């Protein structure tokens, strides 16, 4: 019985990217049906099909061996969950920017930005007609989402989850530290951390292995930089979406961190036989190797 159940879920557990897709798609369905997210099925379909089409075109142009839709699907789903705009055209542009950035913006063969992150930040900066609504999740959704994310970590058993853990530790320390210094009750920092957009960022965005430093120490330093930047933007500049802006800005430091703290570059083949590694990272790397 147990074995047959496991067999049933094998397609999901075999490749954590499948788990990510299932999680993000479920969240999107819940967001649209249960939380009245301002995105309709038509808009979601436009974003997802554009992401896949862009991936397909780039696969052809860069002559990759095969078309792998999974990475583009994750980017598209993340955009559906985060990006809001009155114009379907801008949503489509965001999907194109997200996927094509993996192929176009590269340093030493490694793409610089997390696709979803750069698409959102670029469009927010360039147009002023897109926004992210970080408060739209609510507590019930938050805890369901948190469980799903933690489930993802278990499924991944990913050596590169260190960046996620490090970011959580640094960001929590800063948010709690500020509240303690101000003499605020702890319900305040807890409420600030109960944020669906922050979870999406922590578990699905900053954890992207192709855009984080190669060495573990480098990734921890990177997580610290992103956390400090996010905190500064949020609590010193009093702007919204500190984590998104911070990740985009800190991504420029990754080549420097890799130079200062060199380590073997993350490659698909290298992790193939490593039992502890994260298959979805491998696959993602393959898809984005270009």
């Amino acid at each position, binding site marked *: 019985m147990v074995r047959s159940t496991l067999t049933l879920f094998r397609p999901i557990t075999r490749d954590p990217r499948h788990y990510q897709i299932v999680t993000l798609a479920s969240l999107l369905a819940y967001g649209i049906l249960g*939380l*009245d997210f*301002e995105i309709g099925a038509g808009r979601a379909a436009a974003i997802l099909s554009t992401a896949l089409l862009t991936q397909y075109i780039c696969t052809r142009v860069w002559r990759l061996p095969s078309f792998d839709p999974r990475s583009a699907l994750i980017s598209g789903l993340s955009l559906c969950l985060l990006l*809001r*705009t*009155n114009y379907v055209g801008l949503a489509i542009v965001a999907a194109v920017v997200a996927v094509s950035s993996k192929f176009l913006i590269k340093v030493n063969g490694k793409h610089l930005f997390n696709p979803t992150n750069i698409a959102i930040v670029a469009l927010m900066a360039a147009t*002023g*007609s*897109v*926004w992210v*609504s*970080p*408060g*739209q*999740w*609510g*507590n*019930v959704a938050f805890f369901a989402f948190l469980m799903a994310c933690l489930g993802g970590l278990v499924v991944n058993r990913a050596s590169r989850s260190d960046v996620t853990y490090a970011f959580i530790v640094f960001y929590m320390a800063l948010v709690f530290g500020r509240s303690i*210094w*101000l*003499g*605020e*009750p702890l*319900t*305040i920092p*807890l*409420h*600030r951390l109960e*944020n669906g957009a922050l979870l999406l960022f922590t578990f699905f965005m900053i954890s992207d292995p192709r855009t984080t430093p190669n060495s573990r120490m480098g990734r921890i330093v990177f997580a610290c930089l992103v956390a400090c930047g996010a905190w500064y933007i949020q609590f*010193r*500049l*009093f*702007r*919204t979406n500190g984590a998104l802006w911070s990740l985009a800005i800190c991504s420029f430091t990754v080549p420097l961190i890799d130079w200062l703290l060199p380590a073997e570059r993350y490659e698909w083949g290298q992790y193939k036989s490593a039992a502890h590694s994260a298959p979805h990272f491998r696959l993602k790397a393959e898809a984005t190797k270009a």
Partner: protein
Amino acid sequence: MKRVALIVAILIAGAAWNGPAVLAFCGFYCAKADTKLFNKASQVVLVRQGDRTVLTMASDFKGDPKEFAVVIPVPTVLQKGQIHIGEKALLDHLDAYSAPRLVEYFDEDPCRQYAMERMAPMAAAGGVAGGVADSAARRAQSLGVKIEAQYTVGEYDILILSAQQSSGLETWLRESGYRIPAGAGDVLTSYIRQNLKFFVARVNLKEQAKLGFTMLRPIQVAYESPKFMLPIRLGMVNADGPQELFVYALTSKGRVETTNYRTVKLPTGMELPVYVKSRFPDFYKAMFSRAATKENMSAIFTEYAWDMNWCDPCAADPLTNQELRQLGVFWLPDSGSGGRLGPRIPLPVPSGGQGVFVTRLHVRYDAAHFPEDLVFQETADRTNFQGRYVLRHAWTGDSTCDAAVRYRAELTQRREREAQTLAMLTGWNIADIRRSMNVSAPPDPAAWWQRIWK
């Protein structure tokens, strides 16, 4: 770059040295009397473009003016010109313009199809409060409290205070006649550590008598700060239940929402039984309560989001440019003539308000569900939204065409649907609703087995 931030929160302290003070920190202001619809309701207009904010605050206080004061944390010492006393009529107009509305349709003879539309506006909240405070500079200094500035603006005496410790500020406020509830110290501490000053206002009875106002008028402050938020924590320290807050955000780009709480749209567009017309305030209250409960009391509701240039249907005329400027919409061109409103002229729609988008937010909050201050963001969303409920009056003619026969058959079903909708939205008893509508419950469908051997 380190910018000074501004937080605005208002404490109400009751009554002064000698009076039988009923103090409460029950909100932005303390509202002793009930509002028209909601108890302890406050209204705030937040005009915002870039980092510039003009805040207008009003509560529904209708008690003895000498009993009330307001304390507002502010980022800098405000100059006299940054403080203004507004007109309550402006808030009433904004309230009426943005309030949830009923739309009435009259079914025509089904043999001839068209509908007529009328609507009935509804207002929500109201009021204002004033303050207290006397200077005792030396005493203040010994408590680590500094009186940074002192003005009389309109009927208010205003002090700008800075403090080193919450205990000193608390003591000074108490000695100056403000009843600070236990527990306020912690909240004051966090504002003091953020280097905020405290704006304290109370009513100057002599000035008030001279000016001839009987109602306390709204206080307006203009400031520049990247912070786009409203502190509500002080108001919850000794609140004895949830409080109501209406926020009217006037912006140039688009809809305003909270970034640290869910912003939810009020249920809208439903068809309701026509008797709701006479009970619309009850309906609105019950519906809001139910919607808030459904969101675990943790959400903020958008009740209206519209380009101020027009409305459809209009619960009230859109505000004129002059009214908007008086509310602090500083980016509108000055239309010239004087400060006071002219006579209300029936305005063809569209009227003024080009480049102004209004968002009406309504929140019922308490400390258990709203641990931190409200933080807002202006989005680029210009989608219009209104709380709008439809009443369809039945056609009562005696035509006998086929369409009329079908119409009468459908009418029974429609009324039942309307009853169900009303029960679902308000939680009212369905039997009571049917009684009010003069309709009977649909017969229970026969059990499946009753139909077998007929």
